[in-house]
Each structure stands twice: as C-alpha cells, then as structure tokens.
C-alpha cells in the first residue's frame, strides 16, 4: 500500500506543482487555495489515468482531501482484488492456469 500512496502523491504533485511532497498527505480542498473546481477535475482525471479507474461523478464531490481520495482508491482496489480472487476461486485449477 506504500507504493499506492506514493503514486497518489505523484498525482497530487502533477496537479498542484506548488506543493512540496511532504505537504501532500495533509492537503485538502479547504487548505489549498488553488484546489478549485477546475483543478479538482484535473486531479481526478490524472488519478483515473494513473490508477486506470473510473470515478463515479456522484463520488467526486466527496473526494476533497488526499486522505479521503486514498481511502476511496484503497477500497476500490480491495474490492476489485476481492472480486478477482472470488472469480478465480470458482475456476477449476486447470482453467485458472
């Protein structure tokens, strides 16, 4: 999960180049003036591209801090991981190979 967090830090660094790397984990929409709606769209697009995910428009308004986005992505990742294992578990050993 450390690599996961590091990739998200990179996404923030690209969307908000004025931020120092150590500031990123604590950043939120309320604490960063440049995080307006346009920058928010850019950030979400960079994250979608980096993690190959599609974030539902309904979820976007809730993703207003690094911590919340990290949490969201980890849940999404864990869910996908679970589904993948579940699916593989139903296959015969030969099919799984």
């Amino acid at each position, binding site marked *: 999960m450390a690599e996961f967090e590091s990739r998200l830090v990179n*996404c923030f660094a*690209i969307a908000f*180049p004025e931020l120092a790397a150590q500031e990123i984990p604590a950043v939120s929409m309320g604490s960063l003036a440049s995080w307006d709606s346009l920058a928010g769209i*850019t950030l979400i*697009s960079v994250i979608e*591209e980096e993690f190959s995910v*599609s974030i539902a*428009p309904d979820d976007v308004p809730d993703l207003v801090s690094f911590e919340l986005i990290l949490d969201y992505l980890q849940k999404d990742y864990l869910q996908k991981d679970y589904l993948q294992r579940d699916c593989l578990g139903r296959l015969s050993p030969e099919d799984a190979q």
Partner: protein
Amino acid sequence: MNMKLAEALKIVQSAPTDAPPLQVALLCGFTPLHLETFLRAQLCKLFPGRFPVVQTGLYGDLIGNLERVADVSAAVVVMEWADLDPRLGLRRLGGWEPSQLQDILSEASRSCDLLQNAMAAVARNIPVVACFPTLPLVPVSFTPLARASEFTLELRSRVASLSAELSHIHGVRIVDPQRLDALSSSRRLDVNSDLSSGFPYTLAHASALAEVLAGLVLNPQPKKGLITDLDDTLWRGILGEVGVQGISWDLDNHSQIHALYQQLLHSLSASGTLIAVASKNDRPLVEEAFAARDPILRETDVFPFEVHWGAKSESVARILGAWNISADDVVCVDDSPMDLAEIKAVHPGAECLLFPRENPQAAYELLERLRDLFGKDKISQEDGLRAPSLRANAELQHDMEKASPGAASDFIRHIDGKLTLSSQKQPLDSRSLELVNKTNQFNLNGRRFQEAEWQNWLNAPDAVLVAASYRDKYGPLGNIAVIAGDLLNVNGVNGDSSGKRRLCIRTWVMSCRAFSRLIEYECVRWLFAKLDVEELEFDFLPTARNTPMQNFLQQVRNAPAEPHCRLSRAQFMQSCPRLSHTVEESANG
C-alpha cells in the same frame, strides 16, 4: 502512442516562462479543459524556444469567440455538433422529435454560414487551424444507428461543404479526419465528463486531437529532396542479375508496391520535390532500363543519377552538392539497412528510411510517411521550376568551368540575366514568407517568422519588402530572393538633421539556385537607387549554415561580417563588380 494527461501537465509546467510567448487561441463551444492542456504540451514540444500561451473563449459561443480573437499568432477552431445547433449536444434539451429535424438542419445551415464568415475574417490576419465535428452524432434521428438517415447525411453534407469552402481560403488549414481516425481510434465521447464539466472528449481523443492541431499550427517546412535506391526499391529485382527485362513493378509479378512507390515519386517530382538516384549498379544498364522499360518515374524526373560501385554516402554528398542543400533537407530510401547506416554515419542529418521490399503493408506505410514528409500547402510556380533550374545551373557551372580563369565574370555578363523586383507589401505573398522560412545558406540571420508576426511587421509604414524573381538564357528561376527591413531617418553627427536615410535589413534570403549570378549585388544596387538610402545596416547573425551570406558581406564590405554591420553607398560602389542584368520593377511593385 497518445500523450498522457500527467505527461502533458509536466511538459506544460516545465516550459521556460522567460522564453518569448507564443500566443495561440483555442476557440471552441465546449469547456476546453484537458484539450487546452494537451494543446499547450504539444506546442511546447514543437516550439522548444517559445512559451506557449493558449487563450480560450466563452462556453457555448464559438462564433462570438471567433469574433473576439485578437493578439495571437494562430487560431485553433474546434467545432462540434452542438456548435451548429445546441440540440445536437448533451447539455441542452430542445427536443429530438422527428418534426424538429428540418428545423435543426435549417439552424445548422445558418450556423455554417456564420462560421464560414467568422473564420474567413480571422484568416485574413492569422493562420486558422480548423477541425470539424469529431464526435459521433447524438441519436437524434429516427433510423436505427447502422442506417444513415436523410437527416444525418444532409447534416454531414453541409459540414463537408463548409469545410471545402474554407479550404479555398488562404491561411486556413483543415484537420483531415482520416489522419485523426488513425491517431484516435478508441472511444471519443466521454458522457460523464460532458455532463459534469462540459468537456466532451475522452483523454485519449483529446490527446490525439491536440497532436494533430499543434502539428498544423507548426505547419513544418517540407523536406526538399528524395534520394532513392533502384534495385528492390524503385523496382523489384537486382538489375545486374536479372537484366533489364527481369525487373518488375506490376501486379503480375507481385511487385505492384514498387509501381506505387514510383507513382508517388513521380507525383512528388511534379510537386517540386527534387528526386535523385543513388545506386550501386552499372550506369549503361540503368540507362537501358529507363529507356527500354519506361518506368512511371521518368528519367526526366531524376537529377542527378549517381550510379557506380562506390559508397552510397559519396553519392549522397555529390547529390547534395548538385542540389546545393544540406543533408537535413533530404530523405534517403533504400532496401539495404547497411547502405542506410553508412549514409547516416556520414550524413547524420539525412532522414534514412528502409524500403521494406518483402512487406507491402509496411511499404505502403512508407508511402504515407513520405507524403507526410514532403507535404506542402499548395503547389507554386517555383515548384515546377526547381528541378529544371538545377539542371540549368549544372549546365551553367559546366560552361563557366570551360571559360578561361578570370573570364567567369565576363561569362555571367553574357547570359542575359533579367531581374524583376517587386516592393509590394499587400496582399501577403506567401511565397516570400515560405522562402524566408526555408532558406538556410544565403540567409542574413536564420530568423523564422510565424505568418501573423510577418504580416504585423510588414504592416508598419516604414517596413520595406522587396521580392526578386530571375531568369536568364538557362531558363527561369522564379522568385529567388526576399529582402525585408525598416527605413530610418538618420541624423548626422552633432545633431545635424541631414535627412539621410538608412535601410536596416532584418531579413535577407536568396535561393541557392540563384548563386553565382551576382544577383545579390544587383539587389543592393537597386536598394540604394530605388529607396534613396545612404547606408544599409545588416541585422546579421552567424548561423551554422549561412557561410554564403558571410562571404558576401565580407567581400562587399571588405571586412568580416558582424552583427549590425553597415555598408555605405560609397563602399558599395567601390566593391561592386560590373553588373549587366536587365532590372525591371513588376507592375504591382
């Protein structure tokens, strides 16, 4: 491979903010969002010495954005269906009832007329890059999706007419949908993004579109010459082994791809591209092949032929000499990777492309690549003169060498040189700008201009533009020189207002085809006489390739060329050789 958004943002963020800005307008009716980012990134890549600034307009007002555009070097217009009628977009609800289709068509026609007028008005001042709808039409018609309806066909026809009309206007460059299809084959419409932010494109489509748009803003100069191999390239077979009757370029012998290659080269030749042959072969056999087999690429399309058993790089060197251009301006095509590597080692600037003789699909892609490398906006009169004038030049050089030493200058006086000069600044002569932007050797400083920048400068009342064309008994050379500068009134020493005038020459180029004819001296003589100036100042800068200009300034001033060096009328009269051209001013000059 499309550029990623993260990569585009990094490129934009690392652009040098202290570089001269390149102002480009991105005009569309949707939220430009990531298209703006991708366009800036692509412009950063294509204009490394500039800081691209992309101006955008108001949402939903493409025509208004066109009317408001100002102070930019180029305008990029990206139109989508909703710009023709908002009912063709996802964010407005005007109805998709069958009874409304005729009204949508009428509204779209009206919008097409307005867009045509607005784009034509912008194109009078700056280049306009235009892209017509790239997204699928919304399901507005009543037919199943696989069946084209009268409505959709009619709508597409109106857009096609608009596109064709605009293509006739100077300065308008239209995105070819076929090229965009090749780069953007995945899903284009992002419904989520369109509904939430007003940006309708997927990232992949925006990235591909920006690449095409930026390429058209740059509008690169085409390569000047193509050097081709013969065996297993221009034709199938090794001439020395299979003989004249054994080589082929046809369907029956499964060698049609060579015929298509010849056809492309013949077309390039007719469009002003120089074509030469570099082949390891016996010369008489090659001559016999061209005479007996009548290839599509005619012998007269080719100058020169370098046919011998020496190194290919030596052939290329001689061809470059005959053409008087640098390796950067040529493409070499050969089926031998080894020969291409040998050429590349000696001429690193040359673009060396392998002819994939065993793979027609790959060979076809090579044909497309060649068309791209040699593509040009339009065919000019000079394009038809280029190859004949080089042949004539070779003849002239040969005749000059035959003349006794010292008699060369006398020889030049007897070739009936006729120089025609024009000082007309309007309308903009695109050939002059093209010559300025592609000439390297006789070039005062290597400075290149965007069209808007060039036009703005020449609009100044004191700006002077002189364009020269030339012909002699060896044939016409067409437009061969451009001089542009600013006229200044100069006060004499101690505040003496003598009323003397000086021409500060900012740009001076002359085609290498016009060398060795003393045309540069005749141009200077005309400037002193016609403009009534006492002094010329040269905005000279040395470049890697402008040695001919440096040599001329050295000779005429009797001192090394240096930035802002000057030449007085008296100095020129002393150094000028005897000239005997007939000089005419063009009727519109």
